[in-house]
């Protein structure tokens, strides 16, 4: 049986901020079609991990490699975030970072930036090829909005959306970059149970329809246990456990780290 290609391969990742070691030798890998969750108590370094992998920080040590489907593995340490996104890895943010003064549709259209190529001169001249590209951008963005259920709000300003809608918009925007790997940072934060269930379905649907793998940071255990294929657990910057949801549920180390939290939801 051929081994499934590793879309993301992180080994020995270490991140220091001055004297503080935020991440200590973490290994993680994601294979095609997986939904992998990264969980852990607050301050464990999960978002820092995301930031290292997506190029916002340059890791102090370790290797981060991605391998687009049908392509070759590429070490991405130190690459700029926009390069990494262009290579096919997109993300959402823990504290929603939309473009508040732009419309919902325009937010998604930004995601198309790295997949289109009109330059300044093209924009001014606006020949048929450019006009076509613009129209495609609009159409694709509309489709994505429909996919996350925000098509009606297309012309509203992003800042006017409800919290849950803003999170969905962030996902649509990330999808617009045509990633093969999607990183979601606490997508269910602040959502009520109904919204979380819808998000649950949305994530699985995205994985199936878009054929991408998903790495998510989440605190909502129900969501994590429901949809994850595998889970990594972090605490104080170190990886303390990894396995399937069943394995993690019963892991005493994990329960200890989450003391006080309902790990059996």
């Amino acid at each position, binding site marked *: 049986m051929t081994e499934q290609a590793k879309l993301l391969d992180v080994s020995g990742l270490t991140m220091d901020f001055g004297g503080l070691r935020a991440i200590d030798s973490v290994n993680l890998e994601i294979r095609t079609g997986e939904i992998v969750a990264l969980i852990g108590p607050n301050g464990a370094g999960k978002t820092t991990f995301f930031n290292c992998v*997506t190029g*916002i920080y340059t890791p102090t040590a370790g290797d981060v490699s991605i391998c687009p489907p049908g392509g070759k593995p590429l070490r991405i340490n130190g690459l*700029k*975030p*926009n390069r990494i*996104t*262009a290579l096919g890895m*997109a*993300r959402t*943010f823990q504290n929603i*970072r*939309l*473009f*508040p*003064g*732009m*419309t919902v*549709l*325009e937010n998604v*259209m*930004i*995601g*198309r*930036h*790295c*997949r*289109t190529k*009109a*330059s*300044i001169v*093209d*924009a*001014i001249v*606006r020949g048929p090829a*450019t*006009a076509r*590209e*613009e*129209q495609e*951008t*609009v*159409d694709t963005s*509309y489709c994505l909005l429909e996919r996350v259920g925000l098509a009606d709000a*297309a*012309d509203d*300003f992003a*800042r*006017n959306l409800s919290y849950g809608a803003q999170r969905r918009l962030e996902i649509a*925007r*990330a999808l*617009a*970059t045509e990633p093969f790997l999607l990183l979601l940072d606490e997508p269910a934060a602040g959502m009520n149970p109904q919204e979380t269930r819808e998000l649950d379905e949305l994530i699985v649907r995205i994985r199936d329809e878009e054929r991408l793998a998903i790495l998510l940071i989440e605190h909502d255990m129900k969501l994590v246990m429901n949809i994850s294929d595998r889970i990594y657990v972090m605490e104080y910057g170190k990886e303390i456990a990894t396995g399937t949801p069943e394995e993690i549920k019963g892991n005493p180390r994990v329960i200890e780290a989450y003391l006080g939290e309902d790990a059996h939801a």
Partner: protein
Amino acid sequence: MREMLTSLKNAVGIALWFVFLTLPLLVVRVNTLNNEIEWRWENLGWIAGVTALLALAWQLSLRWRDRQRDRSVTQDEEEGMVPRATLQTLLDNRVLCRRLLVGAALLAAAFPWLVSTAQNFYHVNVMVSALIFVVLALGLNITVGLAGLLDLGYIAFFAVGAYTYALLSKAFGLGFWTCLPLGGVAGMLFGLALGFPILRLRGDYLAIVTLGFGSITKIVLENWDAVFGGAAGIAGIPRPDLFALVLDGRQKAVYSYYIILALVVLTIFVTVRLKNSRIGRAWMALREDEIACVAMGVDMAATKLSAYALGAFWAGLVGVVFAAHNNFINPDSFTFMDSAMILAMVVLGGMGSILGVIVAALALKLLPEYLRAFAEYRMLVFGTVMVLMMLFRPQGLISNMRRRYAAGTKGGGDRD
């Protein structure tokens, strides 16, 4: 009623405070030449009266503003001056819009002939100066309004264009039309050179660095006599030529007018195209949230540099027109005040809004010209307007209009 009484009490208190505050400066004037002191007590009366009234008006308007804020459902409703619905329907009404545009265009085209005679073409010259600043404001609108890159030294690019034409025409005898694009390119290169080291800076620091660049440019222009003529500047700069025809004074002015008018139209056209394009959206995303923007695949360096370069290009371009129109340039035209004024035009007009910026630019340039009676107070009013606008209408005259895209059919955006 109770409210009114407290307002009145406050007003009196404030008036007394300001009387105290202005006492030494407005009342006492020490004349060291004749060794005497001039006591202008009547100023106290003025201050007391005016501030009391203003304080009252102020409190009432602050209360009005808070009530407005509570009443509005979404932030969109705060368009302000004209109720949102009216303005939006006005701009939506394509027919009406087109008619207004045509009317404005005809007026603009006929303007120089309507206001001038063979001897007196003062108004044409005023309009040329105003339109030069319109282009400057539209250029800065790209850098500050669209991309959110605060530039307090924008006037430096204007100077680059002007001095390029002055020097090239003096040294090599190059004509206006040859130098026009060269000035733009020179400005653009200068913009790239200055933009490159400051890519990582944001907000206040960016503002101060650009201020520093602008000031350094002016000081160098003032002191490097050999090349730039120093404080005396460069004179005898040729006017724009029209196929070697000999033009009289009025015709030259009108010619300049049409040139700058064409440039205004060009700038508007280019800006509209850019706003509704891939690069325009990238600029706006950069302004809104740089980190998210980069995470979504936008190359920060290239996008920022393009914003600087394009903004600087327009400044360089009209710099050439400025030098040609005035026949003479010196560093006094390129001070921080001018940079601040152009920035004010962009901010007061509404960042990113073409129509708003044009209106603000014309107002800030034409009003001082035509209200000569108050010339002394010009800068005072300018400073006050800046503060007041930030307090009461920070989004500018015309704020972000919703852009609409039609799916499936030919997509187009609103004019603004």
